[in-house]
């Protein structure tokens, strides 16, 4: 089994999702089910095949390096859970 309880705790930490201890084993079982199923891909010979990340066929367009938008503090903060003086407020990060 590729994923055990410890791995789930590690993934949850990377994903910044709190997963209670008692849920970790159940999630490990689910993830293993999915990962065993996707292992089917190993049947495919992909030697010398380049990964395909985008189907657009065009490279990302360049534009002039100029300011086209801005000065929208009220709009940016319109849905904020907590703000003061035009800033986002978060729990203290430096003692």
């Amino acid at each position, binding site marked *: 089994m590729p994923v055990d309880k410890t791995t789930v705790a590690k993934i949850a930490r990377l994903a910044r999702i709190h997963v209670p201890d008692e849920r970790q084993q159940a999630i490990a079982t689910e993830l293993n089910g999915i990962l065993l199923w996707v292992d089917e891909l190993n049947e495919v010979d992909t030697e010398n095949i380049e*990964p395909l990340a985008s189907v657009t066929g065009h490279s990302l367009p360049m534009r002039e390096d100029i300011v086209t938008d801005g000065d929208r503090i009220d709009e940016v903060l319109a849905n904020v859970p*907590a703000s003061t003086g035009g800033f986002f407020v978060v729990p203290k990060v430096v003692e």
Partner: protein
Amino acid sequence: MADMLELGAVEARSALDTREISAVELTSAYIAAAEDTVGLNNYVALTAEHALEMAAASDARIAKGEAGLLEGVPIGVKDLFCTAGYTSTACSKILAGFTPTYESTVTANLWREGGVMLGKLNCDEFAMGSANETSAYGPAINPWQTADGADLVPGGSSGGSAAAVAARSALLATGTDTGGSIRQPAAFCGVVGLKPTYGRCSRWGIVAFASSLDQAGPFSRNVADNALLMQAMAGFDPKDSTSADVPLQDLSAALTRGVGGMKIGIPAEYVLDGMDPEVVTIWQQGQDWLRAAGAELVDISLPHTKYALPAYYIIAPAEASSNLARYDGVRYGKRVEAESLDEMYALTRAEGFGEEVQRRIMIGTYVLSAGYYDAYYLKAQRVRRLIRNDFETAFENVDAILTPATPSAAFPVGRKVDDPVTNFLNDVFTVPANLAGLPGMAVPAGINGDSLPLGLQLLARPFDEATLYAAGQVLEDAAGFVANPPRRAGGVS
């Protein structure tokens, strides 16, 4: 007019132009229909007052001879599209109450052409699901019913969009399709749904799920109406760097083109073990209809088809885990207060995201993590190239491909499945088009023994939506499908 709800969008446009009906009358009828079918839970927000204002403005423009393509046509919008001043939540608790200050490009295009916004439609949370059962607002219900009267799913993720169009509570609707989220619900609800070529419709202002696969598209009750909505919503947008600067074909003209001389591929790999015999029959029926209309049917092979789903379930969660990192409780949306910043992130995301979304973020995080990136993520992207190559080879010899839209008809709400993989199989016929970036259309083709609709899927070359509308119209004419779901507005229950 006695039954305004039975008019198609093209018909309604002409009745509006001749002043046989007014936009306010039509919109009022749809608002009443949405209220009448509230038990189907298709709308998560009905914007009646706004709709009536837009309709009044449409009537004024029609009077001045300034009508747009969609002038006065009432449209429902999947809750994944940002609509300025109206909640846009992706049907997730983490975006509860989120009210954008900007409008998505696609919806802005609709309003510019005179469309009337009826409200926001139910969908799977962050478009992750194939039954509309992961929505924070509860499941949307399909207006179709079997004899036992059980509630059926409308499919997903754009379940509310497909169900509302079928139930006559929206004349047209927008959806998005990352792995089948337009075509599968369209088939389950007996309506027409198009996933355009990747890049046709701007993704700007649409809540992102898997950015290399996501594409917006139209829902309607017939093929001609679908072409009308597509014509209005598509177009190049500099605000989306993957938007394609390729002129849209004349889709209305394509409707009368027919399939004479067209070569249509039938892929051997889409015949599955233990496939529902009624699905096999309708697929055969579709082939007969196209042949009778002058098309040449060609057996083709898409050898990597069986690997599309597992590749998709690596690529889509990987992109989702990255896209959904933005929901951190800092700038918008839900926040769970905590002592430290890290704890606030983790608690906010644990409470704000539903089970399926958490599962996909965790899978995505795992396949992108150090030591697994090559084995899973890059492997899946290599397989993705092989899948696209299969289609490129096939399209050297055929103009379109015909497949079933789904492996089954709609199933009951709350159907218990032991493992998540079973749910993924709903998208077995639709996922390859997303991986390859192709346009695909689901067209209702018949009714099964349980009185439920079954759909067919057409696929075409990139940027050749016109071929889908030409062949889709032929299928629609031959099928003579009558969509009268029992729980529609003004229906029997």
